[in-house]
Structures are given as C-alpha cells and as structure tokens.
C-alpha cells in the first residue's frame, strides 16, 4: 500500500465507523472492497492489519451494538472475509474473537440488522472469501454457520438464496478437496464430517415433499457438478443418483426444469466416464417429461461430445416431435415420409401439441431455436434430416400466413393458433435461414423461395418479420450459387430475383422506416455479392430499385439515409447507379460522389455522415472511378468536410481515409522507408490535400480515439520518412516555428487557429521533433487512469463526507 493511502486510511475508517456520516455512494464501498482484495492478493493481509491497526479497530467497532447502517455492516463482513482468506491472518483475527463475533450467533445473525438482505448477503460473501483453508472449515463447523447457510437457501431474497447455494458448494468442495488429494475416490463414509452434513442435508431435501426444497438441492448439485472438478463428484453422484431417479417416478415430477439442468450439468462433468447409469436416468427423464420440458434436455444431450448413440437418437426424436406433428398435420396421405422416419421414437403421437395457443407457440419457438443452434455443430445428429426439416419450416411459415392446407383436425387447430403469430414467424425464418447451409431437394428449395417471396410480398408481414425474411432470402440466394462458391446465380435464383426486385421496389416506398431500412440493407448486400454478375445487373437496371435507393438519400429518417448512403455507395462501386436526378431537386448534385459529399457536409445526423465516410474509404481502397479521376481533389474535399465534423466517429473515419491515401502513396506493404523521390512527391500531395493540418489538429482532439488514430497515422508517416534525411534537408533547416506555434495553440485549446501553408520539409522536421511515442502511450491509458487510483478513491469518500459537513456549516 502506498504511503499516501496509508495516511488516509485512519480517517476513512473513522468515517465508515461513524453512523452520523453516511457514505452516500454504494459503489464507493464496492470499489474499496476491490482495492482491499487487490492489496491482500499482492501481499500479506496480516502485515496489512498490523501496519494499519485502524482496520481491525473498524471491525471491532462494528461489533458494538449501535445504529450502524446495514451497508457498512455488510461491508465490514465482506472485508473481514477478505482478510481472513489467508490462514495466518485468519488466526490473528480469531485470537481477538473477532470472527465469531462477526459470523457467529452473537453477531449480526442474532441482531435486528439481519433483517436487511444486504447484511445477509455480506455475511455469505464474507464466509465465501474466508473459506479457503482447513482452519476455516473448522470454524464453519464450530460456529454453526453451516446450519445458517442451509436456512438461507430458502431466503426471500433471491440473491441471498442463490449465494447461499453457491457457498454451500464452495464449502463442500473445500471439505472434499483436502482428503481426496492423493486418495482418488473416497467412499461416502470416509468423507469429512462437514461434507457428510452437507450431503445429508441435500439428501433430505431431495426426499422432501416440498418442491422448493427439492429445487434448492437440485440447484446446489447443478452448481457442484458444473464448477467442481474433483474426483469426489463421481462419488457424490453414486450417492445421490438413486434419490434423483426416485424424483422421476413422482407424479407430478417436482422441479422438472432444475432436474434437467442437473442432468445436463452431470453429463458435462467427469461423472459419465465412470458412471454410465447416468445415461439411463437421462433416457428415463426424456420419456417422462412433457415436450416443452424435454426440449432443453434433448438439445443439451445432442450438444454433448460423447454420449451413447441410442440416447442421442432418442433425444433427437424428442426434439423433432413437434415438427413431425406439423408435417403430419398437412400430410396429404397417411404414411408420408415424415421427420421421425428412422429415428427411434414412440409411435407418432400426433396429438402431442399443447392445446393452448401460448404453449404451442412456445414449444414451436423453442424447438426451432434448439435446432437452429444444433445445425452448425460438428456433433449434430447424423444423418441430418435436412429435407423434412426444410419441409417443416416451410409448413410452419405457411400455417402462420394462413396458406397451409391442413389435412387433419390437428392441422385445423394449428392453423387457427399460428395464423399471424409473429413470434413463430421470426423463429421459423431464422431457422430457415440456417438451413440454407445444407442442400435440399429441388422442389423443396423452390417452395422455400416461394414462401419467402410470399412473406416479402405480404402487406401483413411485420417489420421484424420482413427483416428476417430478407436475411433468410439472402442466405438462400447465397447458397444456391452453382457450383458452390461460384458467384453466378443459378437460373432459378435469377427468376426469383426478378420478383424480389419488384417486392423490394414496393418495400422501399413503405411508410414504415424499418421496412425501408431493411430493404436498403438487403439491396446493399445483394449488390456487394452479385453486382458484377451480368444477369443480376441486367435485372437490377431494368427495375426502379437503383433510382428509388438514391431517392432515399433524402429520407426523413436518419437510419434510412445512412442505409441509403451505403446502398448508393455499393451500387455506384458496381456502376449500377445512374446519375441521380431527383424530381424534387432538378438542380441538385449530378453524380453519386457529389450526392454523398452533400450528405457528408449537410446532413444533420451522424449516422448518414459516418456511412458516407465508410463509402468513401471503400471507394478509395477499391479505386472507384469517381475517385480515381482526381484522387487529390477527392481527398481534399472529403478531409475538409471530415475535419470540421462534430461527430468524432466521422473524424476517425477521416483519418482512416487519410491513412489509406498515405499507404497508397508510400506503399503499405514494404516495411522500410519510401524511396526519397516518391516521398517528396507524396509529401507535396499530402500538403496539397491539407492532410497535415487535419492530422496535427486531431492530435489534440478532445476525443481520445481521434487523437490515437492521428498518432498512428503520423507514426506511420515518420517510419516511412525517418531514415531518408536527404542531403538538401540536412543543408538548410526549414522554418518550423510557425508550425510549432500553431501546435502550441491547439494544445492550449485554441482550435480555431489555422495552420496556413505548409512546406513538406517543415512537416518532416516537426514530425521528427515530436515525441509521438510518448503521446501514444499517454493516449493508451484510459481517460480515468488518474481518477481510478486508490488514493483518489479514498479522497473521494472523504471529500463526499467533508462536503456534506461544509454544507451544514453553510446553513448557519
């Protein structure tokens, strides 16, 4: 601890111990605890307490019956726990009977303060920190704390209850870790007494008739198997699995969700390697749970790396069952190949779908979400029933828009429940998009595009559904390139494209801005992918879409304008944007470049301006024609606009653009310095576009990222120029005084001052004279590095109290 902090510490302790001076800010206490934790981790706690007796005094002070706030009490409990984590310090505190006072029955536990959840939480967290060594275990056993933890599991405050469960796991782990070392697996009767008590308590809970107690025990076990990796966990499962299995036989099954969590936690641990009985329990659970409850278990099982094939097949069957029902509900002839063909499952229970709308919707959504997560995994079930899954997704979407023809009573019910259900529509569209990773039979893929087009065309599709439909369509278009990886659209996709553009045309005129926005995003992505392909170009140019997209540059909604900028940039890159001529502004800008410059200089919102900068950066990088024509003029105009922008992201983008320009002039690839001739030429060009004024000015920008970017840019330039101090430069030294004077003024905050004409030589000289590395390091520190020091924290706490005092004095 630095001396300054040590000096402030007694005052701080006095403030904390004084009930008349409440610490207003809770976060201060948290920060203090963090700091103490860091200090104790770095050195000896015992030494710390000995050198700063005020800390022990504070802890003793807390023990006195008084009107101390519950926050301070909680703080003291946690602080004591932090100190006592080291065994010698624990013993030191024990000598003073401080720990029994704080954590024993005569401490806050028996006092009125216990009613405050913060105190109970502090008590638990204190013990959690303290329980790190065998002495702590003894203390816990002797002080009766374990019983208190048991009771806190049912605490009305969820935070307290959950922390109590975790503490129990921690104590159990601590108790088992010691003896287990070197002994491998122990028999239950050899477990330490403390561990036996906890396990006994868990057994009682598992046998209890009260569902909350069962749930508590299951939660504790889930945490134990999830976080503890000792071999003892295997013994624990052997001991408790019969009780868990007995839960399965109860009707109704208590705490099904917690049970699923536990089984998955055990399955992911080292238990299954030695105890294959787990798989039987899992299989039994799968068959006992309702479809809604079994879904998470089935999905969890399928995500496991090693698990018996039979169980995987069963789990997949469970997961697929709702979709199989959907397919069955529209099957024209009985016995149509369904989803569960080949998969072991009980004879198709078509009527397994829940009768209520919300339950049915929930089941379908969660099934689709599970399958969506499974699809990309290497351990997903194989063979993957791609075709029936596609058919199911299409059928669900058809049910949702009312176009499915149900063939049974269940189908009729499904139809009535799903029509217009946005939740299911979104889930099914997401899933359909993911399925594009696999192939499908030709006629099914045709159906996929048909249903996607139906959604895109339907006036009833909500904006979020439309967005998802656009995304899924893009994914399917991408996957239908032939051969895979080729950028040409296959003929069928080409047909779809024509209809798509007609829809897009209408969507770009939608009164709902979200729809216009997602339409533009879709257009940008399509153009990026297929802009070079003749078929696409022809179809796009034959439509009104490019014209509409550029008209949306004037949209009243800034997000839409930003997307329109991106779309126009992409269209223009591919030569797909005719000269914009808006009927509203016949005298307006004539080229896309002018149009985007207008956005950059005049748009009142940041998003469109940032989008314009991104487009310019891309154009420069890719050598867009409009840029290549007169690169310097382009740079000069954009940098001028960007440097004066109020949005720091635009300025950073401007510097990024400048960096690319620089790299293009000086060669980014070659690591060394640029050849002198090229350098001189480049410097002159940089001066002409006034890049230096922008870069130097940005060094002192009030927004740190801008200054950092500028620093990087200038460092790059200096690296390219450094060793090449040409003879003529060495001869007559340039006049750097005006530049340095300007820099001084900018540093002082007088940003209005112009730099004036710059000579390349002067720039180089200034660059070399500046300590850019130091500047970079300073900027790399977070902006609150001064304010975050412990000293400042202590001062803040004291000042806050002091200020309170001042105000009181002012009142008189």
């Amino acid at each position, binding site marked *: 601890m630095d001396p300054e902090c040590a000096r402030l510490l007694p005052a701080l302790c006095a403030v904390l111990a004084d009930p008349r001076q409440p610490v207003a800010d809770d976060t201060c206490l948290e920060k203090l605890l963090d700091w103490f934790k860091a200090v104790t981790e770095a050195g000896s706690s015992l030494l710390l307490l000995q050198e700063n007796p005020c800390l022990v005094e504070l802890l003793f002070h807390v023990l006195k019956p008084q009107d101390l706030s519950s926050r301070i009490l909680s703080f003291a409990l946690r602080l004591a726990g932090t100190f006592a984590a080291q065994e010698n310090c624990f013993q030191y505190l024990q000598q003073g009977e401080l720990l029994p006072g704080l954590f024993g029955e005569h401490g806050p536990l028996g006092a009125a303060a216990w009613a405050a959840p913060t105190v109970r939480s502090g008590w638990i967290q204190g013990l959690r920190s303290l329980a790190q060594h065998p002495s702590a275990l003894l203390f816990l056993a002797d002080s009766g704390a374990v019983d208190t933890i048991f009771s806190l599991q049912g605490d009305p405050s969820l935070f307290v209850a959950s922390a109590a469960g975790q503490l129990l796991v921690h104590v159990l782990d601590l108790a088992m870790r010691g003896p287990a070392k070197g002994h491998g697996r122990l028999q239950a009767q050899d477990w330490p007494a403390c561990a036996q008590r906890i396990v006994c308590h868990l057994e009682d809970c598992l046998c209890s008739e009260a569902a909350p107690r069962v749930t508590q025990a299951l939660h504790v076990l889930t945490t134990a198997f999830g976080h503890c990796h000792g071999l003892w966990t295997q013994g624990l499962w052997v001991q408790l699995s019969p009780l868990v299995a007995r839960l399965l036989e109860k009707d109704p099954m208590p705490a099904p969700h917690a049970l699923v969590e536990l089984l998955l936690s055990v399955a992911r641990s080292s238990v299954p390697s030695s105890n294959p009985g787990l798989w039987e329990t899992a299989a039994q659970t799968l068959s006992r749970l309702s479809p809604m409850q079994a879904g998470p278990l089935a999905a969890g099982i399928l995500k496991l790396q090693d698990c018996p094939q039979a169980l995987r097949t069963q789990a997949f069957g469970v997961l697929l069952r709702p979709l199989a029902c959907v397919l069955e509900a529209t099957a024209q002839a009985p016995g149509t190949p369904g989803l569960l063909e080949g998969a072991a499952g009980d004879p198709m229970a078509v009527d397994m779908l829940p009768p209520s709308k919300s339950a049915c919707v929930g089941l379908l959504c969660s099934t689709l979400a599970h399958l969506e997560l499974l699809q990309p995994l290497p351990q997903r079930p194989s063979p993957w029933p791609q075709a029936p899954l596609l058919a199911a997704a299409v059928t669900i979407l058809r049910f949702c828009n009312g176009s499915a023809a149900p063939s049974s009573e269940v189908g009729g019910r499904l*139809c*009535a429940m799903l029509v217009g259900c946005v939740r299911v529509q979104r889930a099914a569209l997401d899933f359909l998009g993911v399925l594009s990773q696999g192939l499908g039979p030709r006629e099914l893929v045709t159906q996929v595009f048909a249903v996607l087009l139906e959604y895109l065309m339907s*006036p009833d*599709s909500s904006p979020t559904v439309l967005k998802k439909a656009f995304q899924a369509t893009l994914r399917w278009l991408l996957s239908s390139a032939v051969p895979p990886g080729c950028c040409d659209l296959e003929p069928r996709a080409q047909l779809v494209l024509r209809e798509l553009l007609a829809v897009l045309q209408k969507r770009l005129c939608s*009164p709902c801005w979200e729809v216009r926005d997602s339409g533009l995003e879709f257009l940008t992505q399509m153009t990026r992918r297929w802009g070079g392909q003749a078929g696409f170009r022809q179809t796009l140019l034959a439509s009104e879409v490019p014209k509409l997209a550029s008209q949306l540059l004037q949209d*009243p909604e800034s997000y839409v304008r930003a997307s329109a900028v991106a779309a126009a940039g992409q269209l223009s890159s591919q030569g797909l944007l005719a000269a914009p001529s808006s009927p509203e502004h016949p005298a307006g800008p004539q080229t896309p470049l002018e149009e985007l410059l207008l956005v950059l200089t005049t748009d009142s919102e940041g998003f469109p301006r940032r989008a314009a900068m991104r487009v310019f950066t891309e154009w420069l990088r890719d050598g867009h024609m409009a840029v290549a024509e007169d690169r310097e003029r382009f740079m000069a105009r954009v940098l001028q606009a960007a440097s004066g922008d109020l949005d720091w992201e635009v300025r950073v983008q401007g510097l990024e653009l400048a960096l690319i320009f620089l790299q293009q002039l000086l060669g980014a690839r070659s690591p060394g310095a640029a050849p002198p001739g090229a350098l001189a030429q480049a410097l002159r060009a940089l001066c002409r576009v006034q890049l230096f004024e922008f870069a130097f000015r940005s060094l002192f920008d009030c927004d740190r990222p801008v200054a950092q970017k500028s620093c990087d840019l200038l460092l790059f330039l200096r690296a390219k120029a450094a060793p090449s101090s040409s003879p003529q430069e060495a001869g007559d030294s340039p006049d750097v005084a005006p530049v340095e004077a300007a820099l001084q003024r900018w540093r002082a905050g007088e940003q209005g001052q112009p730099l004036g004409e710059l000579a390349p030589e002067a720039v180089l000289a200034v660059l070399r004279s500046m300590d850019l590395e130091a500047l970079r390091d300073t900027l790399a520190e977070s902006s609150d590095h001064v304010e975050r020091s412990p000293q400042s924290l202590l001062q803040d706490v004291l000042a806050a109290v002091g200020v309170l005092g001042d105000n009181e004095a002012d009142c008189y």
Partner: protein
Amino acid sequence: MKLYCLSGHPTLPCNVLKFKSTTIMLDCGLDMTSTLNFLPLPLVQSPRLSNLPGWSLKDGNVFLDKELKECSGHVFVDSVPEFCLPETELIDLSTVDVILISNYHCMMALPYITEHTGFTGTVYATEPTVQIGRLLMEELVNFIERVPKAQSASLWKNKDIQRLLPSPLKDAVEVSTWRRCYTMQEVNSALSKIQLVGYSQKIELFGAVQVTPLSSGYALGSSNWIIQSHYEKVSYVSGSSLLTTHPQPMDQASLKNSDVLILTGLTQIPTANPDGMVGEFCSNLALTVRNGGNVLVPCYPSGVIYDLLECLYQYIDSAGLSSIPFYFISPVANSSLEFSQIFAEWLCHNKQTKVYLPEPPFPHAELIQTNKLKHYPSIHGDFSNDFRQPCVVFTGHPSLRFGDVVHFMELWGKSSLNTVIFTEPDFSYLEALAPYQPLAMKCIYCPIDTRLNFIQVSKLLKEVQPLHVVCPEQYTQPPPAQSHRVDLMVDCQPPAMSYRRAEVLALPFKRRYEKIEIMPELADSLVPMEIKPGISLATVSAVLHTKDNKHVLQPPPRPAQPTGGKKRKRASDDIPDCKVLKPLLSGSIPVDQFVQTLEKHGFSDIKVEDTAKGHIVLLQEAETLIQIEEDSTHIICDDDEVLRVRLRDLVLKFLQKF
C-alpha cells in the same frame, strides 16, 4: 321474439325484430353489388362504351342486343343501374314501428322503405349518421341523375330469358325486385322521418321497450343498439371497430348480460389487416407517382378516406411527394371534409382534445390550406383548369359504374404507368373492372375494412357473454375459398344461430317475467308473511290496469254499500262479485308424519306407495286414497263427505295458509 331477415348481405343488414309488442327494423342496408351487372355511366361520351357489340343468343337471336352489351367476354345490361332492395314481402312493412340505424352505410335503402311501404313510424339515428348518410345519398342520386339514360332494360329480367343468359346475369337473384335509384325528393322525405339521438340516450318505445345507441367505433356517429325491457336485453351489434381510427371508441361494457346478441357487419376481408393495407396503399401510391403515373382511388366521400388522408399527410413529405397534387372529386366533397371537422364530440379522444387547442381535428384541413389537397364537385368546371399530372384522385363511386371515377378509368386505363387502388371492400375489384377490359393500368387491391375480425369477435363475445348469438349464415362457416381457415368464423358456445335472406327466426329465448307496479295505497294494505327466511308472501286483490304497455295494480273498488234497494242500480256502478277468498296454501306434506297423524286419529292399515310425482297413501279399511303430489293433493273416497272433510283437515294441518 322473432327476427325477420330481409337482407342476405352480412354487412348491409336489414332485419326486423318483433319484441314484446313492438316491431323494430334494425338497419336498412342497400345491396349495390347488383349495379356491377350494368354498363358504366360515362360522364363524357365514351366511344368505346357506346360501340360495344350487342349480345346475341347462341342461336344467333339478337332480340336482346339493345339491352345487353358484350365487353371482353362479359355481358352487361345497358341501362340505368338498379339496386337490390331488402325483402318487402316477408312482413308487412307498414307495421314497423321504428327503424334503428347503426351507421351511414346501413341506411341507403331508407327511402325505399319509408316512402313506398306505408311506413308511418319513426327512424332513429345519430346526427353524423344522418348528415353523412344524406351526403352519400345525395352523391348517389347526383351520380345517376346527371347522366340521364333514356333506356331502361327490362326484357332480360324475364325469367325464361334470364335462364339463357351467361353468368353472372343468369345467377342474379330476385331481379324482378331490383329498383332504380330514388330521387332527391324521396331522400328528403325519408330523412325528415328521422329523429336524432345521442350515445347512451334512452328512448322509450310505447313503454314496452327501451332502445339505446352505443358508440361502435366504426364510423362517425356509428352505433350499436341495446333493446331492452325490464327483464330482457337484446344487443344489436352492427359495423363495429376496435381499431384506433377517427371515431369514438367502441362501448363494449354496455353490451354485457345480453340475452340475445345479433351480430352483423364484421369485416368483409378478414385476412387483410388494415394497418398492412394502409402501408400497401402508401407504397403503391408512391411507386406509381415516382414513376410519373397517376393514382386513382375509387372511394366513398366519407369514412376511410379521412384516415387515408391522415396517413398521407404524414407520409407524403417523407416520401418526397409534397409536390404531387391530391384531388378529391365528389358532389359532396366539400361538405364531407367540413362535416368531419365539426362533429368533435363524436371523435376519438385525441381528436377531441385538438378542438380545445383550437385546431381542426383532422389534418386534411392543413392539406387543403397548403393546396396539397384540392376538392371539386365534379370534373367539369374548375377542376379541368387546375388539373395537373401526375396526381392522385379520390373519387366515387367504388363500384366503377357511375360517378367521376368512370371518366378517370377511361382516361388513364390505357397506360401501364397509372394505378387504380381499391380501398373500399364492398365490391369485388375484378367484377368492378370487368367492363374496362382490356386494361393496361395497374390494379392494386388494398381493401381497408376496420370492422371487427373474428379474433376480435371471439374476444368480445368472451367478454360480454351473451346467452345466445344470432348472425348471418356467412359467419358460421369459413369463407368458401378458404375452407380450412376455421379461425375465420364465429366461434362461441352455444353455437351461433344463423339466418339468411327471407328467413324468419324464432329467437331461442322465452320471456318469463313482466314488471307490474303496485299503487301505494294498495301496497299499504298488504300483510306479508314470511314463509322462508328472506321470502315473504302476501295475497293481493286488485284490478290490473294496463295502458301503454305499463301494468299497474290498483286497489279494487270498495264493495257496494247496501243502498236500501229502492234506487235502481246504474249499470256503471256494477262491481264484480268478489267471492269470499279461500286461503292460499303453501308448504309440503311430510309423508311419514302424515301417516303417524292418521294413525293417531284412528286410521289403521295404512299403506304408502311412491309414484313418479309423489306418494299415494292408501287407507285400505276406509277404501280411501290420498294422492299427494308436489302441487296438489287429492282425497278420493266414495261419497263419504264426513271422512273427506276429516282427512282434508288433517292434510291442511301440515300446510301454511295465508
């Protein structure tokens, strides 16, 4: 209670309810889809229409070629359009006491009923309903009268000839009853019979029933009606909406506890969500105009047009359409736009509050002020000077058979740049377009029907829980084109009773109580006797006096004093003989105790038999039988009056008398 169903159109209902002693007509809708069988009436001479070839029978017979014309494979009647009236033969309409109107679309047949059936009653409607209804009628009459047509075709209506015609003429129903449009004079006379009412106002009908209009949320002044007596309540729900549009929201709470709920006027396009359709309307409008095309919106002069103008008000600037002119052409355009602004108390809360700012409740005022929206009575006159393209034109009639819309269809139909957007759900757009084929202009169908859909109906019924629901048969099965959509029908328990045109329904509901007042002096004389805790009875002798469907119990006249017998009694002094009243009995006879009592009184050899209705006590010795039932006891003995009286007295001991 009976319901006479005079119209088969579920959204243009006309039903007659006989309830207690009243005969109440519920709405007076006019089915105008019949006009789709006629050729359009062009405002300006149309060579295309006048040169259509006459239609000839298969055998080449051309005697109908003056009446029927052929256009792109469809056959149309070349005559003044005619309307299909409500059934007039099912019930004598002169007996109708009152007509209740629920909204301005449902009163279009009023002149036919009030002027030609001997109707002498009163019509009840809210003020906006009457004013806007008048506008609709005025527009209709104007559209038809300003293009006089000499010819009136009737030959084709001959049943034998009609059979030979192609569809849909062949299948048109009751063509003999189709009538030409009424005159303005008839309209005025019909409207003069209307009495204005306000929401929640209680109107007594002959003391028998009370009728009350409630806000239905569908249109300005639109109402549902409660028809109730003291012990019965019938709700009539017609054209209601739960969406937030311009009218006052629907009053659902007052519909609770109905014995019968008559449900009509649901959305005609249950699969089209109005919000989505408005979006579709705006997108297509913008797309057309941006491409330099014109947009034609066939519409009524009031209703959805207010909401469309409001949406466009918000949309046109964002879509960059502020320089595009919007024209509203109707003989009543000006009145409609102005009326909408003055019925503040009939508007939704948001619009009502604007009035206090003060601002016009509808933003179309601003559109007019800034010259973005211009309105004209017809295409003649000022409009032709101001007309600028591309533009958007709102005009009637949505059937495309008459009105200024006919002119624009002829004018713009040939160019694929132009678009006609159908927003009114009343007419099939394909049938409406049939006489304009071949047509190059784009057609967009965005029906905007804000009336209740089936999901809303099912929620409404769950909430108000009527005992019985009665609705048109169309609502009790899924639409024929979507037979799998079981969600598109009224779903309630017990299942709804359905009706169709020309059907008489006996409503599944029996009246059991009637309210009778007791005069105070008579009430004073009553001596109630408590027979069960909380239930007291008293006998009363009184004269029941009934007048104007009100029943009053008055004290009976005093018994005549003996008058000495000399004077002759005047006839008017005659009073009915008041017989000595026997006491009324109540209670039941516990058989076991009764048997014990009999034994105590010396009867022996008693046998008790249980019967379906009670018990038979057999006194075998006395050859007597006592039959005890729930509401009667019979003592059957052979001419032994003494025994009978003895037994009677024993029976009476167990009963209470008062």
